Structure formats: C-alpha cells, structure tokens
C-alpha cells in the first residue's frame, strides 16, 4: 500500500500515529483500526496477485470494519451449527445488508442458511432436520497450534 494514502478507520493518516501523539494522550485504540477502504485496496492487490478468495475475504473484512466487536461475536456464534433457525439467519442477513452496509457478508450468511437447512444443522424443527446435532467435543488441534 502506498503509505501516504492510508487512512485509519478514524480518518487519521499514518503520520498522525506517532509516539508524541501517544504521549500526549491524543490516540486511542480506535485510531489503530484498519479502514474498510484500506482493506478493499488490499483486496485489489491480492486479486492482482491471483488470490481471488483472499480478496473476497478482505472485502468481507472491509464490511466488518463497521460492525462492533460484540456484533462480530454474535454473528460468529449465529453461524455455528445448531444456533439459529433458518429465519434467524435470513433476518441476520437482512440486517447485514440493510443496517450494516455489508452485502457480501449478508450473501454469505444467506448461502449458509440454505446449506444449513439442506444439511439439517439449524436449530428447531423448521429445518428439514434429518440428522441429529451432536454436541461440541473440542478441537483435536488444541495444544499444538
């Protein structure tokens, strides 16, 4: 990235992020948040290098810069198996699209809703649940990351 064009999520330039400003108490953690615009530029760079899925991920990330930490946690949890009904997920997708200006993430959630319904991993009986949800048993990679 051309460093003179970078703006933080709070609109500061890189030059603003210096030790004097830290000492003067002028900066907060929010000032060190990457901006959606920067992430979209990074997505273009990844795409140009042939990494189109990385680019898609960075574009979804760009959308999430405008989503609060807590809401990020909540969306993640909603996408885990057995947490939501089909309607919950489509409502979430609507909110992402209309309330949070996150159409790519919204489409991703809608896609998940369809597949989850088909595979029976939604909460409740509104899915064509053919399979029994099993309980999480942990991560075999835990302990050697």
């Amino acid at each position, binding site marked *: *990235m051309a*460093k003179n064009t*970078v703006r*933080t999520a709070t609109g500061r330039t*890189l030059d603003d*992020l*210096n*030790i004097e400003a*830290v*000492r003067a108490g002028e*900066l*907060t*953690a929010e*000032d*060190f*948040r*990457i901006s959606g615009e*920067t*992430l979209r530029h*990074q997505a273009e760079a*990844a795409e140009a*290098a*042939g*990494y*189109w*899925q*990385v680019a*898609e*991920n960075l574009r*979804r*990330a*760009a*959308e*999430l*810069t405008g989503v609060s*930490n807590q809401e*990020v*946690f909540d*969306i*993640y949890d909603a*996408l*885990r*198996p057995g947490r939501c009904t089909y309607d919950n997920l489509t409502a979430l997708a609507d909110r992402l699209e209309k309330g949070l200006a996150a159409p790519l993430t919204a489409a*991703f959630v809608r*896609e*998940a809703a369809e*597949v*989850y319904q*088909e*595979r029976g*991993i939604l909460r409740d009986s509104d899915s064509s649940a053919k399979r029994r949800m099993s309980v*999480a*048993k*942990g*991560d*075999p*990679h835990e*302990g*050697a*990351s």
Partner: protein
Amino acid sequence: MRSKRFEKLAKRPVNRETFIKPWPEVGLIAVDSPLDPSPSVEIENGVVVEMDRVGCEEFDLIDHFIAQHALNLGVAERAMATPSGEIARMLVDINVPRATILELASGCTPAKLVEIVQQMSVLEMMMGLAKMRARRTPANQAHATNRKEHPALLSADAAEGALRGFAEVETTVGVTRYAPLNALAVLVGSQTGRGGVLTQCAVEEAVNLRLGFKGLTSYSETLSVYGTEDTFIDGDDTPWSKAFLGAAYASRGVKTRYTSGTGAAALMGHSEGKSMLYLEARCLLITRGAGSQGTQNGSISCIALPESLPGGVRAVLAENLIAMMLGLEVASGNDALASHSEMRKTAKLMLQFIPGTDFITSGYGAIPRYDNMFGGGNFDVTELDDWYVLQRDMQIDGGLTPVTEEQVLHVRERAARAIQAVFDGLGFPPISEAEVEAATTAYDSADMPDRDKVADIGAAHKLLYGPLTVVEVIRILEEAGFHDVAANVLEMQRQRVIGDYLQPAAIFGDDFQVLSVVTDPNDYQGPGTGYRVEGERWSVLQSLPQAWEPRTYLKSVGAVQESMWLEEIGPAERGNQVEIVIALGPAFGAEISHTIGGLDHRDVLSAVLQGIQGEGVPARVVRAHHTSDCAFIGYAGAQLSGSGVAVGMQSKGTTVIHQRDLAPLDNLELLSQAPNFDLDTYRQIGRNAARYASGESTIPVSTKIDNTARLRLIVQTTLLHLYETQQVERDRPPTELRVS
C-alpha cells in the same frame, strides 16, 4: 528362545512408538483408502453439479463450500482433464513456473489433488515444495510458554526467540484467564528482541478474537477446519462460521492462518472410511475457499497417528505440498512431538527443512520442553545448536540466526525490565528485581519465583475487559525509557492500519519490511534461482559462536618456545650396538610441546626412555627433519639404530615401533590412538621396543579403544600435523639430540 539383539532392538526409542496395519473402514489409512473417490467434476451453467463422484444433491457442508468458494470454475474442466501424472511432472520440472501450477491446481478437486501427489516420491515432493512455497524467504515460528505463566519469563523468552530470528512467536496458556497477560508479555518481549515479530496467544476463539481486537496479538492460527461434516460439527463450527471468523480477524488487521492436518477426522471418529490425505485435501480446499492466506498443516498435533501407518510421513509431506499448490502460506508442522527416536524425528524434519517452507516448524519450542504448554513440543531450546549446525552443514536457511550468550542475556534482561515497567505503569501486580534477574538467566520456570496468581488473573481480566489498550502500553514503555520497544510496539499497531501483512505469507523482515507473495514471491526455477543462502546471510549462518579460528590454534596448545631442552648436537650416525633409537618428528619438543592427548613432550620422552632402560637397553634420541609422517620417521630411526629397532614419534603423539628391514609403511607396532595414551602407554612402548631389540617375545601394547576420538579431534590432529609438516626440511638428514 530370544535373540539378545532383538531384545536390544525392542528397547530402542523407536519401538516405544505404535505401529499398526491400515484399517481403511475407520480412516486408519494414510493414503488410498478403497473408499476414497476418484476425481471428477461436472459443471452446468456455472454450477458444480458433481464433484469427486458425488452429485450435488448429495453434497455435504464441505462439498457445498468447496464447490461454491474453492474451485476456480474457469479452469476446472481443463485442470481435471490434464492427466495427474503430467501435473506431477510439472511440479518437478524446473522449466514450469510456480504460477502455471497454481492456476491448474485452482481448478482441481480434492481427489484430483491427491491423485497428483500420489504420483510422486518424497524426493519429488520436496522438489515441489522448493518451487511451490509461497514466500521466497523461508522462516520459522517459536513457542514461548511456561508452566507458571510467568510474565517476566515469557517476555524474556519471547525476546530471545525474536533475537534468534523467529518470524512469529506464539504463546498459549495453562489457565485461559491468563491469556491477556501472556499475550502482553510476549508482545513486549518479542518487540524488545527484534521489531516486527508477529505474535499470537492460542486460546478459545472468542477470547482469541478479543486479544486481536485489543492489539495484543497480530496473528491467529487457531482456526481449525476438518475434512468431514461430522468432525466439523463436533468442532462446533462450519466452513461458513470459520470463514466469517477469518474475515473478522482481517477486519481488525490481524493475520490469520487456518489449521488442519492428516489424522484429525480419524481421531475424532468421523473419517467416513476416507484416507487421511484425502480428507486433508478437503480441509485445504475449505481453507482456500474461505480466503485464508495460509494454513498450519502437516498433521500438527495428530502427527503420531499418520506415523503409526505405512506411508504416513510421506502423506504428511504430501499435505504440505497440496497446500502450497493451492497458493497457501504453509506453517509445515514439526511442532508436536513426532518421535521418541532422534533419528526418526530428524529424518521427518528434513522433508521440510531441506526444501524450505514458509514456516519450517509451526512452533519450535524456544523454551525447555518442561515449559511447553503446547503439549511439550517436538524440538526445544536445548536442540537449538543442533538446528544451527544443520543450517551450517547444508548451507540451508532454517530461519534461525546464531547468537551469543551475551546478546541473549542482554535482551532477556531488557525484556524482563520492559514488562516490569509495563506492569508497574498499568498498576498490575509488581514484577520484582529478583524476578527480573531470575528471568534473565533462567533455564525454565522452576527457576522463577512464584507469583500471586489470583492477583495476576485479576489484572488479566482488567486488561481484557477494561479500557486499557496497547496504546497505554506504548506510552508506558516510552516514558520508562524503553524508546525502541515503544517504537516497535507502535509500529506493529501502525502496520495493522496499513494491512500489507494481510497478504499471503507475510512476515516482517528488517525495518518492518513486509515479505509476502506480493513483495517476495518464490521464484525458484532450478539451480541459481529462488532463495539461496549466500553473501551476508551465509556468512551469518556459518559464524557459530562455538566455531573457532584454526589459525590461532597452535598458540592455544602451548607451542611456545620454552627453554631448549632438546639440543641438536650434529648429524645422527648409524649405531653399531644393541640400542633403541627414538626418532622424533620435526616439531617435537620445539614448535609443539604437547601431544594431542595433552601430555608434555618431556614427560612422554622420559617415559619411553624409562621403558627402554628398564630392559637394560641403551637409547639415544634423534630428530627427523625430512618427513612428518610417522612411518617414515620410525623408518629413518630404524636405519640409524644399531639393533635395527626404533621408536618413531610424531609431535601429536602417534608412535610406531619400526625395524630396519621392514618396508617403510610396515611396522612392528603402530600406536595410532594418541588421544587415549597415558605415560604408561609410552613406557610400554619403550619396553616393547627394547624387547624386540633383545629378541625377546613381546605382547603388543594394549591401548584403550575410543571410537569417538577421531570424531572429536580430527581437526586438532590435522592442525598439529599441518604444523609439524610445515617444519619439514626435505633434504636435511636426521640430527642427534641431547636431552637435558
């Protein structure tokens, strides 16, 4: 009846491991399960309707995700129609660039990717790794953890790891609630050792995400993905939830890499009868489809499971290769304990070490195994010198830079003081001077004072859930005088805003220069291309602190000009009585004063003389000038000896008993293991020479056999012999010596 040899073999470290025969139905098979599908793809109207013999109406979660996100439909039909053997040959063909294979592989299904690598031997796969690795410059990752979760020790260990060149340092916890403090300690320590080291604290996803959001960590490789639907569900995730998580990390400027590996599905009981490698290929396509820049794969913590099976280690290498074919950054395992056998462990490592990967280990214990909270780890701090020597032996960059003890002590103390200042500034439980001192010199956490765990956990909670941020940490470091550490931690935060290190395979080189596929793409295409260890880097890698200067060796072995106790008194004459001539090498008792076994030449000569005189035979001493070869020194002495028997001695202590009528390279006795000789050996040599001269029956001198002597001392032998050879005057006949 038992063979004693088989009894010994049964007790070898390698036989503490478990070896089983394949059982495909439950997934206990490395490759080629009968239930693995053959490759296929069918695309209708831009939609995948069949993949690896499964119709879309039967797709599970993973098939759906791969079909929708992973496959490059523009090349899928061409890629699938290209014979697998042809793509395999392209992988080892230096004339085919990496980009060509990346493009073809982007259209391959899991079964196709497996079919390609199944054409290849491990050697060919290693060639594939050298070419397909994403980043040109190889690197390595460290583990820094300890049982006491001691912040000063964590900070010091992270600093040492950074100094040693690890590009990433990861920590984890014994008790989850410590996570924020451990992340903080490793952040401060790593930036004390070397600016630009990426750090993470591996914990449960929600906490992990919070740590990243706080700026306490800069990467995450905790995102596990699985090769079967049931395993995924048991892991309480789906490809969509994991992909969302990946985007969430990126949205806060945190680098992520997914984790998967052979054996996980079998271990979790949901293999569907598929081979480990096939299921891992599915994981890798999920990883790519989710837009992860990379993967931590190579079986990881499951490594012992594929290793129990035939072809398991080859399959683990194959999974690294498939990941690279998909363009992913690969942290290639070698992190969890892979064997009781040093031979097996090292042999396995070489598969990644020699070709080089983005991270040769996805966690090298930069701490003692006792303190490794990632299950002990495969390699630890005591094996660092082995690693350095392997780099030097093979002219290979394994990602580590040699350091001196002084440098290490310096950064450890500084890192301990930096975290002490941060704890003080944040009002956290103080870190005492005694703790700083202990952390500076500690071997492991047993050397550290205990801390008030309740108070530390309280501070950790405050850090994670309160208003404190890394900005406060930077301010405290700056005000406490740790300007460079403050600047480095600040730069890490600035880099989050820039986001260049979100590109595939990114690490920071010197001065926060980003090395990634964008700035440092692997361009290997055979000899003379790609990353090569040369110039300054090669000079650094060969300069181990324990490597010494051979030019100054002779000063160190005491080759000082002492008083002349051996005086040349004229040309040596041939004797005509029963006597023993002791013929000395050109430097004996002069330029060189001790044998390689550390014996003073005076004592050695006295012992030989005693041995001879004890048998009532007279002796005289001459010096050979024309040769430094032991046999020829002895042969020259024998020509001068009245009895025809002589003792020939080189300065390094090698001795021969020679006889006039033998061929020069023949002898009565050759005593070549000089490092093992004591003065009694030399007395026996003198006695035996006298007995040969007197015609008495003689038992050859017995010496201790130490087969490691040559290994230990061949350099010293070479140098002593070189120095003696430099004293040779080819045309000068032997001279008579007077011993005073």
